[in-house]
């Protein structure tokens, strides 16, 4: 084990926090949507893409990042945001559309921005990669050792922006890392049906100065390890890395997805391999963390999530006229 114990614990607590957060969101999102499911109803309306099961990708790399490093994220952003230390209260409030939210309720779940920790996300597949390139370019121009991480799904790797960004970042040896979360599906389309390559890290071969690494089986430790090297490479000016991680989407593409395109049996078998449970065992067995300390971490995580939801629910709605503000500043 090469992971410092403090990092290993942080990864556990953060994954637990993410899981609590997503489970809670699954419930909150369901409120007001039964017996008839109406996407626009309830305290959390609109599309909702949860990352339950995909925690390792987020924590494995964010364990190496500081607030000066940039993260861009796609439509499924909560795990990245939490791992990047986005203000949880404001983030939750944003998803509830409240005035106290990160964006005063104008952004919502797909449009979370926390400049304090250089986090952003967006709803257009592949669009966040160039933003990370720009952050990496800014770091290089400012002579800082900051890195920029773009999280994407495996489906997004077939968008033109992936190629353009890697060419430019390879060319200029930018401190860019693309993390491809391969959860096997882009909505209903399987990776096999969308992607003419075994795994996207192999696409590093198409760009000078770009490295590739693959993480099997949603493994937090391996994700930590390859991220460490990728971040080192980036900070030392050696160039970009593509990391692909095999991960699991427990839920539908979005909440409300009938999921007729995959076998019902698939999910339980994925859940059996749950990375958080596995990591907990690692902590106990390999890192000798006392069970009680784990309990405390879980409590803290739970508490942070509960506080955030309380904050969100109790916050005020924005005033109507604010809809017309923030267009030209």
């Amino acid at each position, binding site marked *: 084990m090469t992971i410092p114990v403090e990092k290993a614990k942080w990864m556990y607590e953060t994954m637990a926090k993410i899981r609590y957060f997503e489970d809670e969101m699954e419930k909150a999102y369901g409120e007001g949507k039964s017996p008839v499911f109406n996407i626009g109803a309830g305290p959390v309306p*609109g599309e909702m893409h949860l990352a339950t099961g995909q925690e390792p990708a987020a924590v494995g790399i964010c364990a190496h990042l500081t607030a000066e490093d940039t993260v861009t994220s796609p439509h499924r952003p909560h795990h990245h945001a939490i791992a990047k230390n986005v203000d949880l209260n404001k983030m939750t409030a944003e998803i509830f*559309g409240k005035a106290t939210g990160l964006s005063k309720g104008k952004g919502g779940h797909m449009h979370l921005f926390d400049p304090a920790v250089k986090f952003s996300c967006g709803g257009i597949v592949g669009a966040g990669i160039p933003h990370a390139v720009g952050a990496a370019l800014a770091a290089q121009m400012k002579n800082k050792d900051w890195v920029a991480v773009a999280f994407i799904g495996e*489906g997004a790797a*077939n968008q*033109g922006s992936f190629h353009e960004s890697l060419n430019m970042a390879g060319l200029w040896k930018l401190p860019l890392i693309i993390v491809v979360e391969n959860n096997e599906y882009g*909505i209903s*389309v399987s990776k096999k049906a969308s992607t003419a390559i075994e795994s996207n890290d192999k696409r590093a071969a198409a760009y000078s100065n770009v490295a590739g690494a693959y993480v099997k089986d949603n493994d937090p430790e391996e994700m930590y390890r390859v991220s460490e090297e990728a971040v080192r490479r980036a900070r030392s000016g050696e160039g970009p890395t593509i990391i692909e991680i095999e991960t699991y989407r427990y839920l539908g593409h979005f909440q409300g997805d009938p999921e007729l395109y995959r076998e019902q049996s698939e999910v339980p078998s994925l859940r059996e391999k749950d990375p958080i449970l596995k990591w907990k065992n690692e902590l106990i067995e390999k890192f000798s963390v006392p069970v009680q300390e784990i309990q405390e971490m879980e409590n803290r995580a739970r508490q942070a999530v509960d506080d955030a939801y309380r904050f969100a629910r109790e916050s005020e*709605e*924005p005033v109507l006229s604010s*809809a017309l503000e923030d267009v030209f500043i």
Partner: protein
Amino acid sequence: MTTTKQRMLTGNKAMAEAIAIEMERNPDVFVLGEDVGKYGGIFGSTQGLIDRFGEKRVIDTPISETAFIGAAIGAAAEGMRPIVELMFVDFFGVCMDQIYNHMAKIPYMSGGNVKLPMVLMTAVGGGYSDAAQHSQTLYATFAHLPGMKVVAPSTPYDLKGMMASAIRDDNPVVFMFHKSLQGLGWMDPLDAAVGEVPEGEYTVPLGKAKVVREGKDVTIVGLQMTMHYALEAAAKLQEEGIEAEVIDLRSLAPLDRDTIIESVKKTHRLVVVDEDYLSYGMTAEVSASVAESALYELEAPIRRIAIPDVPIPYNRKLEQYVLPGAQRIYDEVIQLMNE
């Protein structure tokens, strides 16, 4: 026109039925796009097609809009008749070059020697808190650029009939369907999303507006949701003794200016309502056309209702605040009648 018996269908089933009929009639017709296969289209526009026609003619694509819309263009140039889905109109920005520089222009740039008989279908509209990148209609963005027909039907009957026409048309057609009018199981169930749709094949011409309610006091022009809101407002206005004429634009390009002007000549008052952004939008074009061709017919200034030039906010109340609705139309007409 062969109809059998009356039956009610949702918007998306009506569309999918038209596609199925055309695929049956013509082996060159095929469908491609994201999640059009097993999923049946995120908004149900291709439901059932893969079971009937197989995955060779109903093709799930990678998330590569430039490549697959461009491929539709290339296939159309070879005589195929592709129907290609851009999942949300909001995503046009990743592939607009293929749409407007190629699909729309090649027929003209080739002096009419290359025809592109293809349909680009796409979902538009908001109102369910999907925020700034998933709620737009962008009607004018498409209609402003010449060379493509741009239609936006409002009823299941028209969705089916205009889809049939679009597929048979030898020109590229952008076919916009409104999410709220598809009758999706996971959206607010609207009465307007279900309607009478004859079985079998029929066509509704592209490029013709329709007077959906006659009236003598004021003309309200809308399309898709704003047309339905206009009807709602008109019913309320009737209670006040105001007879509103409501026009369903149905087509943005070509724009049926005659029907609008005809109506204004009768009512002498005009309100234009749009779910797109206000400036440089449909409300502008309709208003300008009237100010050009029927200025002396107007007895009061034209009124425009549309999204007030801000991105669409996520919060439900904020979104409703910027979206046009029946109440807003009602209020504007009341004020207008008092001028």
